[in-house]
């Protein structure tokens, strides 16, 4: 039974099913090899169930979603480091991660990217390793065999290890080019390089030498900005790169990278590069995986509502006084949340009017809430 057939049956029965449901029905009909008559009966049954399970008008959906996402928080661990999935990287998990997501933090504690490759490239280990070494941060020290600092005659010599250069699939010449660009006084003799510090008159010559030594030691010779350690692992049949640090913009431009699957856990980056809808999906995905990892089940719809609320204005806003709660229209609502004095004083000079349409305001003045039972009024029909 293909999806067109199912759609036509659904339309015939005048059932207003969402797409996901139609897909489910199609899958199930293929699994069980349904006949046409059975499909019709099934659609009837599902239509009944769908109508029974609908959300009611006036339902305080926001509060229920907030509670459903917030309540399992007490059951989540605070312990942030646990080698999640890839046993080599530290990723923030549990409650601290959820708080990061909900706060829309610009700088997260463990940004990480997962890079997938296209069809033919993904199975080629060599290629993936090469890209990994291109992306991952490699410092000069990683390709050195010998590193000598001679304080007596104020000089420094290093020896490049050709083996290591080959191992890391780097270009020898590009390394030399970078060195020459970074340091002025360098003498190159095949694999041996010697550096001379700019000796100023001051007695801090030794410190100068030390600083130069550190600079040479930590010079980055390969890697994309913001990306640190890189790890390759095999998932099913293809090779996948996990990185510490995130730079989606640069990575997506690289050849061979599967732009449809490569992702990062930094939501602001996704918003910047891929747009607000992608950011919304990323929020949902991150929150879900955080909860799942802890073993908690929370229905997607609640997380979707939180994500939609955070992104409804076109940018990712945080939950809290700098984001959604601080931009409410009602003075009383803002004042009773945080920063009481500031909101009241500002309201007085702006001459703000609080129309009392929200929940907190009505609780403060003691009137029924405009939600649920309070969203309907009773009118009496005159007797005539």
């Amino acid at each position, binding site marked *: 039974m293909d999806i067109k057939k199912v759609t036509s049956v659904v339309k015939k029965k005048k059932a207003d099913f969402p797409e996901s449901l139609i897909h489910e029905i199609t899958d199930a009909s293929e699994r069980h090899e349904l006949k046409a008559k059975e499909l019709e009966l099934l659609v009837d049954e599902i239509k009944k169930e769908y109508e029974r*399970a609908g959300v009611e008008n006036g339902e305080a959906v926001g509060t229920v979603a907030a509670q459903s996402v917030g309540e399992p928080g007490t059951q989540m661990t605070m312990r942030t480091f646990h080698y999640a999935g890839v046993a080599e990287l530290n990723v923030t998990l549990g409650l601290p991660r959820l708080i990061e997501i909900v706060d829309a933090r610009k700088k997260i504690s463990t940004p990480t990217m997962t890079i997938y490759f296209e069809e033919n490239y993904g199975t080629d280990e060599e290629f993936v390793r090469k890209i990994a070494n291109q992306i991952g941060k490699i410092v000069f020290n990683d390709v050195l065999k010998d590193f000598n600092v001679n304080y007596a005659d104020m000089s420094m010599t290093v020896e490049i290890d050709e083996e290591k250069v080959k191992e890391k699939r780097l270009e020898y010449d590009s390394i030399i080019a970078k060195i020459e660009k970074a340091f002025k006084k360098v003498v190159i003799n095949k694999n041996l390089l010697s550096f001379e510090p700019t000796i100023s008159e001051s007695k801090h010559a030794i410190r100068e030498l030390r600083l130069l030594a550190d600079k040479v030691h930590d010079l980055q010779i390969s890697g994309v900005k913001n990306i640190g350690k890189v790890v390759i692992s095999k998932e099913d049949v293809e090779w996948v790169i996990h990185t510490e640090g995130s730079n989606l913009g640069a990575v997506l431009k690289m050849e061979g990278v599967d732009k449809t699957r490569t992702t990062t856990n930094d939501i602001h980056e996704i918003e910047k590069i891929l747009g607000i809808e992608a950011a919304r999906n990323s929020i949902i995905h991150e929150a879900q995986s955080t909860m799942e990892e802890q073993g908690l089940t929370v229905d*997607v719809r609640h997380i979707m509502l939180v994500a939609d609320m955070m992104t409804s204005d076109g940018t990712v806003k945080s939950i809290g006084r700098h984001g959604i709660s601080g931009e409410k229209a009602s003075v009383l609502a803002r004042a009773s949340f945080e920063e009481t004095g500031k909101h009241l004083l500002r309201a007085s000079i702006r001459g703000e009017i609080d129309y009392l349409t929200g929940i907190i305001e009505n609780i403060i003045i003691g009137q029924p809430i405009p939600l649920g039972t309070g969203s309907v009024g009773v009118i009496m029909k005159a007797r005539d």
Partner: protein
Amino acid sequence: MQGILKKISQINFGLLSPENIRKMSVTKIVTPDTYDEDGYPIEAGLMDPRLGVIDPGLRCRSCGSKGGDCQGHFGHINLARPVIHVGFADTIHKILRSTCSNCGRVLLTESEIAEYKEKIGTKHQNEESINDIVKEIYTVARRDKCPHCDEDKEEIKIDKPVSIVEGNYKLTSSEVRERLEKVNEDDYILMGINPDVAKPEWMVLTVLPVPPVTVRPSITLETGERSEDDLTHKLVDILRINQRLKENMEAGAPQLIVEDLWELLQYHVTTYFDNEASGVPPARHRSGRPLKTLAQRLKGKEGRFRSNLSGKRVNFSARTVISPDPNISINEVGVPEMIAKEVTVPVYVTDWNMEDMKEHIENGPEIHPGANYVIRPDERKIRVYDETKESILEKLEPGYVVERHLMDGDIVLFNRQPSLHRMSMMAHEVKVLPYKTFRLNLCVCPPYNADFDGDEMNMHVFQTEESRAEAKSLMRVQEHILSPRFGGPIIGGIHDHISGAYLLTREGSEFEEDYVYQMIKKSNLPFPEPKNKPWTGKEVFSLLLPDDLNMVYRAEICRKCDECLRQECKNDAYVVIEDGQLISGAIDEKAFGAFSGKILDSIVKDYGTDKAREFLDSATKLAISGIMKRGFTTSTADEEIPQEAKERIEELLNMAEKRVEQLIEAYHNDELEALPGRSLRETLEMKIMQVLGESRDKSGEIAESYFGMDNHAVIMALTGARGSMLNLTQIAACVGQQSVRGGRIERGYSKRTLPHFKEGELGAKASGFVHSSYKEGLDPLEFFFHAMGGREGLVDTAIRTAQSGYMQRRLVNALQDLSVQTDGTVRDNRGIIIQSKYGEDGVDPAKSDYGKVADIDRMIEEMRIKSKAK
């Protein structure tokens, strides 16, 4: 409750002008003295009787109402010199910076002014806030020359909280006021000031309103002394300095002294408004405690908003310790008689309940079901006493309201704090019982997260018919069996219910017919036909199930063997229910447990909440009868393993420790191969953790192989009643590796964990691997490491509750205005669409099947079975 109820439609905010303050005041306050020697309040002093009365018995002079009714009246103080209002100091600074001191216009060009005014106009139309535009204007208007009158502008800085400094010269408050008066009215809106309700010069105070006596009441201590409120103390300070300033100015004192006094007056007024203003030392009591002035009264968790407005203490509530009662329904709560006689329910007297009400009044306040008060139509409340009973009974007629005691069947709201989700507050039916605790059915403990180690819970009694009706139809416990968090049941059997059900229905359990009838009677089930032979447990359980229930699933005790024997399962784990009869399989957590009860789930969804409640009540009672007949206990003998097993476990652990030693040697000899991306040390740690973890698991498996289903602790672990096989492993075989911050124990002493070890020791024991089992007992070192690991857990929990509580508060605050509208969209209170269809499919998670609309596979199977039966 007569009369028309007014509805507040909006609240407007604005600034008070000095004229307004003088107009609304009842008297000018001049003297700093409060009371005279006789204890009477002084005229024109702070406690002037025209400002209001707090003493019940005295009458207010300004409005003539009695003690409790008068809300108080404002007074005013004429300040000798203007004083800047500390809350507006920043705004004043920004205004002075953005306007010209000569012509008073804002320092923007005409085109800029027009552009900004238009932007502000559109924002007003869209009902958005103009804060960003105003901020921009402030930054742009920091120019050096006025574009309108070509005057130069000097830099204006703000010093400490309230001093405005121009260049090097400190502006006095009068000068500030003059400059603010100069500002052009057309430019007000550009600086965020609404000209209809505020003028910038009003931000510098010339008149100070004095709050009524009711706002700052005095307290009479036990010693008889009158202690004044903090605000009164502050006002006294202000008045004193004001007086001195006035005298000094009139007497022509030198500049310096006048300025000093002026500054002091400014300080007092600043701390009067906000005692925690930055840059100003807080005013303190003689005892050293800082005063609590106006800003502190409003802010924070204990302030007006959060503690008196958004949440209040209420009447008609009760709180005591809870205790379990398996014999009441899940919908009910056992209320102690003492409480039932104290909290009342108001009932309108009508022709139809007159007799009943008369009986209640006859019983009086002491005998339970009685009445405490009677309210006459003129709203006078009469207390019911034995003496007054007669007269009340005579006068009783429709239109009176009788406040009667709480009776069986009344609906109340029951709640346990912290109320993290809506199931923490549910409606229960009252059942009045003796003794002094609230009684709760055990199944309803998970949603409240209540245990009986001393927890207290709150009860609220509804006062109006509407609220009672709402609670009865929406908030009863049975409506909340399915949780909105994931669409599955959250109320169900726990602990003994599950082990009892297992013992009842497992293969081989048989009961004599007379005991079966006793069980049926206890569960309130209808009596079946006698069989005249012993019943199996499965047959007894089948009496609970509705006749058209068909289900197949694997129970919790399923061992997940590679080849499932289905109905021939040795563990009796393949549950088949056909037409309401339990054909095979034992009942345990998967049947009607709190989080995974499948049978409970389908009964709620197919037959409704009433049936589900009956099922749950009967099932739990049946399970308890089952366990009572057979008896159930546990002891340390349950974790006893034979010597042979102990030897095997010992061998296994020794091997593991040897392996760890090998790894450490390899590490020291540089033979260890590092994992990609990790240092050698990290690799070593990971490998050691792996080896030790495996050894604990394997030793657990060895111990498990010697446990059978006749072991009660095992029954509890496998059926999901309480505990897990890990607990048994730790008691019988080996406790395992303790961990702090995700890794083995590392810190403690210098370069090692404890001084008992050598420096740099990395062995299993030295880093917290507990070799012994709980039964064997831990040696002192192991005990210490176990304490470290355990302590981390406790600290974790403490921090976690605070952080997650704050997150939940923020989430609830941000999302609370969202609701589903009649067109299916989710909008907030401004009408902005957040989702065009709730959850993209319009399905309520509480009514869904674990997230999906329906379990399509099951539907297809059932459909096919039904058509085959035809």
